[in-house]
């Protein structure tokens, strides 16, 4: 019954992309947070979460993403999302996340805008 989350990270010049694959629940959210905080420790202050491989999330997982947003605000960093399903994007808008972490339609647009 377990739907685990797999994470991969792509470190680039001045920006890191976190790719998720699977269900973002409490464990999934914690995995993302662990990866994000490790990148912050390495000096990355611009993070992009590419959710192309995630078709379902829950509010507990999203609450952990809010903790990451709070941390990024504290350090004056940038967090963005890309490649969301329409339902996940709608949910993020319902919750107001997009006000603090922009949502981009695709990775190329996200990278270009977050680097500018």
């Amino acid at each position, binding site marked *: 019954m377990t739907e685990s989350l797999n994470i991969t990270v792509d470190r680039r010049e001045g920006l890191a992309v976190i790719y998720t694959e699977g269900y973002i629940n409490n464990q999934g959210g914690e995995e993302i947070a662990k990866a994000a905080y490790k990148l912050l420790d390495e000096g990355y202050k611009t993070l992009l979460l590419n959710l192309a491989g995630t078709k379902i999330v829950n*509010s507990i997982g999203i609450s952990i993403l809010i903790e990451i947003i709070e941390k990024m605000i504290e350090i004056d960093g940038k967090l963005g999302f890309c490649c969301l399903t329409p339902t996940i994007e709608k949910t993020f808008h319902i*919750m107001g*996340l997009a*006000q603090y972490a922009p949502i981009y339609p695709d990775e190329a647009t996200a990278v270009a805008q977050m680097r500018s």
Partner: protein
Amino acid sequence: MREVTLALPMVPEMEIEASKTATAIAESIRMSPDRIDEVRMAVVEACINALEHSHASDREVYVTFQVLGEGGDPDKLRIMVRDTGIGFSPDGLEEPTIEGKLKAVRKRGWGLKIIRGLMDEVEILSGADGTTVVMSKMR
């Protein structure tokens, strides 16, 4: 009217099982994929609320799916997520906001807001014998 009820034990990720049934039934009435996704997410949230907050002694969540419509062409899915827990006062809940949650220690508490945002109709029935979230979506 067709009706299916699941009795799910309150174990981690039982919400996924409920969402799979929701998907199959929504597909059977030819609901669009994006709307099915919204139903799935709402079902997940309602099940998690029951799991986390109901304190039901039987440790079960009952999810009933009803297919509704005229003349053999069903166009509406109604889902009832019920627990036998301690109940709560929906009117007493503060509406979460991102501004408030960013400052708060506890970032959770979004379930009902998400359900209301994704479904066409939502009603919360709650009392001393438990809570039922009744939610509907047109095809």
